[in-house]
């Protein structure tokens, strides 16, 4: 009474030879060909994000796909919107300085810089020499932080999961330690004041910056050895997401993205704001405007930033770190009033042109406060770059734009 577990063995296999197999394949191919000519395909709508790690925050792309090819892409934003502008219009001029840290939370120093610059333009405030140098040093250190991190995360988007980011974080920590020593905070620095900076730098500041300057090129060489000639990176990034020159200019794209498309436009050179016209540095430009150029632009810019830092710490003079009027304004922020009028101040932030448009009616609060954020405007041409590319490439293209959602949504 044995339990029958398997079907009984087939006694006779049908005869099978190579010719039959070839014939089967032929029939199958003919069938497939016929089907593909008559087959009706459907496009697929996918909502990429907002809770997706490759969107760098809470950002959504409504994508229409044909197979894996992108037919349509609509960016959807606003998940992190807190109406920064309305908040700023309801508090003193200096009151929104800490909130600017939270715009692009990777680069709080440059956000402070742009806001301080706009208010100084509006209120005609002088900035002492030493403060100008401190500001430039901080801005360039921030550029190093931003570009290093961006390259790390771009590789993350390519699938090199967290190894490059780890190296990037290691170097970023050293700069953040410096920020902590000077401003008291690692990321939300709140360091700039109208007419200067909050505190003078400590005595060990210059040697520490020098140490960073000495070590950074070695790190960049190491990073580049790992990445720049990497075959996977080249295959995935070259000729992907090409942004033509004319479209880039018309769409108001700024920063490394614009320069990767071959337009030599750097606000540090054009406006020469603060004291940037005193430093010798070059503006790198790309050839094709693909993702690889955008990646490489950042590496080259970091090398130029190191040159600026090197010159700045050699030339930094002694003296006041904030002007008398500025110090008074910082002590009594609610007493600070800007004269009636409007001003637009802009800087070359690591991500592009960061501008503040301010209108004053002579009261202690700004009448209108507008942030022109580079991440937001650089997203305008996301669809143009992604059309006809694969889904996986759209992730890389988004990564190469370098957005921070705090700044996109404000």
């Amino acid at each position: 009474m044995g339990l029958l577990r398997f079907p009984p063995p087939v006694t006779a296999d049908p005869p099978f030879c190579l010719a039959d197999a070839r014939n089967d394949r032929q029939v199958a191919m003919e069938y497939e060909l016929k089907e593909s000519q008559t087959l009706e395909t459907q496009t697929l709508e996918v909502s990429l994000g907002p809770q997706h790690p490759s969107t760098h925050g809470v950002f959504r792309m409504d994508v229409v796909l044909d197979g894996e090819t992108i037919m349509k892409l609509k960016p959807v934003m606003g998940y992190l919107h807190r109406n920064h502008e309305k908040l700023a219009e309801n508090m003193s001029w200096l009151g929104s300085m800490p909130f600017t840290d939270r715009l692009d939370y990777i680069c709080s120093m440059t956000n402070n810089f742009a806001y301080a610059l706009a208010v100084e333009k509006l209120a005609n405030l002088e900035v002492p020499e030493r403060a100008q140098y401190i500001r430039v040093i901080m801005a360039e250190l921030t550029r190093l932080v931003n570009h290093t991190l961006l390259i790390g995360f771009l590789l993350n988007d390519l699938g090199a999961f967290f190894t490059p980011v780890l190296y990037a974080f290691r170097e970023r920590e050293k700069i953040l330690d410096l920020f902590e020593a000077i401003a008291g905070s690692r990321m939300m620095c709140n360091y700039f004041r109208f007419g200067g900076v909050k505190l003078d730098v400590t005595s060990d500041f210059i040697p520490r910056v020098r140490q960073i300057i000495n070590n950074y090129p070695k790190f960049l060489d190491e990073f580049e050895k790992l990445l720049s000639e990497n075959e996977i990176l080249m295959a995935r990034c070259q000729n992907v997401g090409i942004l033509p020159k004319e479209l880039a200019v018309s769409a108001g794209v700024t920063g490394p993205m614009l320069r990767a498309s071959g337009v030599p436009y750097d606000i540090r050179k054009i406006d020469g704001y603060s004291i940037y016209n005193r430093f010798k540095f070059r503006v790198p430009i790309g050839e094709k405007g693909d993702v690889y150029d955008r990646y490489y632009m950042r590496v080259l810019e970091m090398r130029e930033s190191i040159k600026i830092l090197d010159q700045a710490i050699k030339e930094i003079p002694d003296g006041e770190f904030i002007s008398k009027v500025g110090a008074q304004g910082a002590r009594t922020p609610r007493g600070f009033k800007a004269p009636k009028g409007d001003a637009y101040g802009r800087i070359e932030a690591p991500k592009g042109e960061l501008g503040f448009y301010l209108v004053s009616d002579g009261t202690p609060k700004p009448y209108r406060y507008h942030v022109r954020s580079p991440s937001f405007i650089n997203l305008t041409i996301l669809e143009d770059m992604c059309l006809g590319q694969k889904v996986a490439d759209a992730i890389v293209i988004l990564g190469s734009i370098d957005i921070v959602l705090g700044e996109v949504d404000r």
Partner: protein
Amino acid sequence: MIPIAEIKQDIESKFLGTTLTVDGASLVIAKEHWFSIAKYLKTDPSYRLDFLSSVTGVDYKEYLEVVYHLYSIEKKEGPLAIKVRTDVQTSSVPSVTPIWRSAEFQEREAYDLVGIKFEGHPDLRRILMWEGFQFHPLRKDYVMEDQDRVL
């Protein structure tokens, strides 16, 4: 950059029947002529303002104002600030998105937050607030929860 008074004269001689006013460092242009003047400023070789940096709306209670900051990347000049005013009832201004793509999201933002309608915009929807939101938060008559808080 050409002095603003000369720009005003030049535009007035090219576009008959329009009068511009100079407000501080910016030009105030009537909205009926703005679109054609914008095209002229972008293409004319003496300006070549090919880069529209910033677009934003301001609520001055009696009227609404759209502020444009134009630069020339080709000539490395700028800025030229341009203000276009509209009354609160109609609150509409011609869209310059067909001329400068960078206005696309910024005009949507100004529509969303300040409530200015841009005629001729290809896709005028809210961008930061959610669809179905009733108000325009950057209008001065927008009531906030803590409106009576004193500074």
